[in-house]
């Protein structure tokens, strides 16, 4: 019955609304086209979510979206081309996305960039970009989503930070700072929102076999997981409404040790 009038010009087919016996949850994944983002989007779609895939890279989004909808046999993903550093466009994009999805239950922020400076290099342009994408973009989106969830008294916010946010290290102070900021922001958000029935999950991946690790200057993979494994672990954490998870779990213990290295020693180490 596609000749019914529509509230707005819609180029994408609309997903079916939830019913009591098919309670499709509605999720937004910001940074959906990359490694963990794409893997988690596939996972959530398989779990029955209706998804808005948001990213800068339209071609990658389109092929991911086609793949998800084809394997589901129905419209389960919609795409939105969006640059997270265009902060002024976030509110309108969010409202559009929520209207198209027919509500919102879960918000996931995975967008992130990394540059690997040389040991004696200080590159403000790259640091600036990392803070913009990794931290300010997340704050821009969550500033829109958090009050909605607070008002609706429910919902789940998933922020993908990093083990790199746990300490400032010799190798990449800018990236560490952007992720430390995100971890800290998510914690504050959690303390604000838990009392309103909203779950805030901080995900701290260690190394993941994505394109990030193929960049020049990237460290050698250690305890590295496939994006698919990371997505499965994030989904487990989401289901259990956890507060913070390390993926893989072993990083919880590694970082426990690293967080407790006294500065007197830490500043003399070469990692």
């Amino acid at each position: 019955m596609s000749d019914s009038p529509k509230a707005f010009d819609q180029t994408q087919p609309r997903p079916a609304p939830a019913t009591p016996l098919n309670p499709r949850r509605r999720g937004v994944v910001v940074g959906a086209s990359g490694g963990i983002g794409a893997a988690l989007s596939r996972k959530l779609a398989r779990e029955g979510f209706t998804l808005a895939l948001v990213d800068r890279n339209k071609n990658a989004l389109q092929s991911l979206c086609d793949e998800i909808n084809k394997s589901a046999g129905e419209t389960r993903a919609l795409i939105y081309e969006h640059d997270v550093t265009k902060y002024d466009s976030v509110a309108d994009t969010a409202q559009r996305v929520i209207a198209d999805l027919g509500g919102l239950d879960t918000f996931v922020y995975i967008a992130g960039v990394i540059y690997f400076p040389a040991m004696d290099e200080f590159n403000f342009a790259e640091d600036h970009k990392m803070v913009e994408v990794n931290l300010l973009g997340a704050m821009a989106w969550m500033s829109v989503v958090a009050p909605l969830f607070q008002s609706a008294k429910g919902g789940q916010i998933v922020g993908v930070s990093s083990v790199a946010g746990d300490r400032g290290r010799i190798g990449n102070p800018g990236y560490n700072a952007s992720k430390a900021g995100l971890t800290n922001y998510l914690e504050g958000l959690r303390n604000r929102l838990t009392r309103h029935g909203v779950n805030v999950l901080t995900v701290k991946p260690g190394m993941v076999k994505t394109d990030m690790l193929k960049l020049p200057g990237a460290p050698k993979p250690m305890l590295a997981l496939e994006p698919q494994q990371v997505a499965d672990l994030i989904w487990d954490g989401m289901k259990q409404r956890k507060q913070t998870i390390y993926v893989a779990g072993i990083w919880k213990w590694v970082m426990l040790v690293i967080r407790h290295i006294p500065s007197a020693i830490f500043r003399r180490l070469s990692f």
Partner: protein
Amino acid sequence: MDITKNFTQLENFGHSLSAPAYLIQPKTAEEIYEIFQFAKKKGLTVTARGAGRSYNDAALTGGGIVLDMRGMNAITSWDKSTGLITAQSGATLEQLWQQVEPDGWWPPVVSGTMKTTLGGCLSANIHGKNNFKMGTIGEHVVEFTAVLPTGAEVTCSPKKNADLFYSMISGFGMLGIFTSVTMQMKRIYSGLISVDALPIGNLHEHLTALQDGAPNTDYIVGWLDTMNGGASLGRGQIHAAHYLHEGDDPDPAGTMKLENQILPPYIFGVFPKSILYMFMRPFVNNVGWWAVNMAKYVASQRKHTFRQSHAAFHFLLDYVPNWELSVGRGGLIQYQSFLPKETAEDAWREMLNISLKRRMPSYLGVTKRHRPDKFLLTHAVDGFSLAMDFKVTDKNRANLSRMLHEFDRIVLQAGGRFYFAKNSETTAATAQAFYGDETIAKFKKLKKRCDPNGLLESDLYRRIFG
């Protein structure tokens, strides 16, 4: 207009479905039109919500704007000499009967709950236990006014704008927003109603009793023991009720007083009914509910006649407040099918047997007698309806969904219909099958005329009309 703070998690009546939306309470027709203009600018959908008593997605539009019509709930005129009442669309049946009953009148058609609003009642074109005699609520509407998304304010009656009258009533709120409704009330001569209770042994007896009993009574309703199979499948109890005639009640002024109608908030005078649902929880499972149905059946064996107040007879769903919470986290859905009198027995026998065999019995079955009506998206047939309540759990969702879609096929094959206030899983294909292409084309033509930008869109509309 910043509507962030209006973002609200809204549910259906059975608490089995939720969708967040921007909830706005308009006070005037002008405000409704302003919201339409805002929605158009923002590309948001709009849906009216009354009391939120639909079992499905009729009053939800996830991510869009929901108009909370309870802000427009005044009774604007009441003439106790003619029985004509005019109220804003957010007024409830509760307000209505409490206004007219002390003067010797009663709403001619009411639902099983008094919490519903007039706008909601007209949108779904509700029926009561007297559908076979008095038809749907729309048949007693003298006139209504509505705001269309185009900004036009229309007044409709069976004579004036008749096409809109017969399509907006039953149109589940997708053509315009009701603002005011004028209805004709029915004269009564007592606050009491006389009820005959009759035990029923099986499905054939059940439908025969409904069909044969209806012509001689004002109301008829059956309870069907959905948890019992075999030779006595379809057993239960029929309640047939008739108004008292002038002179039957020695003290009509006394029995029509509100304090003699209002449902008591306590059981045995001390136990608050508001917390009763918590104590029901442990029994809402296959074993517990079988015992409840069994006990009800045993208690129903005595054929007897009694008098009770109108409110107590009609509003059974309000007797235990929040009873729908007793089913627990997954909530509750209702599956109601309307079948022609010739095919009902075989179809329901098959459906009841399937539900028992798969161990997904309905916990409550209610039957009624119906007649067809002239409204465009009518659910009525010359036959019967069977409403079945199902508890939803994380475990039974997939199987229950499969079973209900099988039921849909059985009902369609038997020439049956469904109702927009109840079923939550009806697909677009099923709706198309029972309405027929001509009806749907007619409705869509009206939709284009009243709502050219497609602003009015509930989740139900998305489900049925895509």
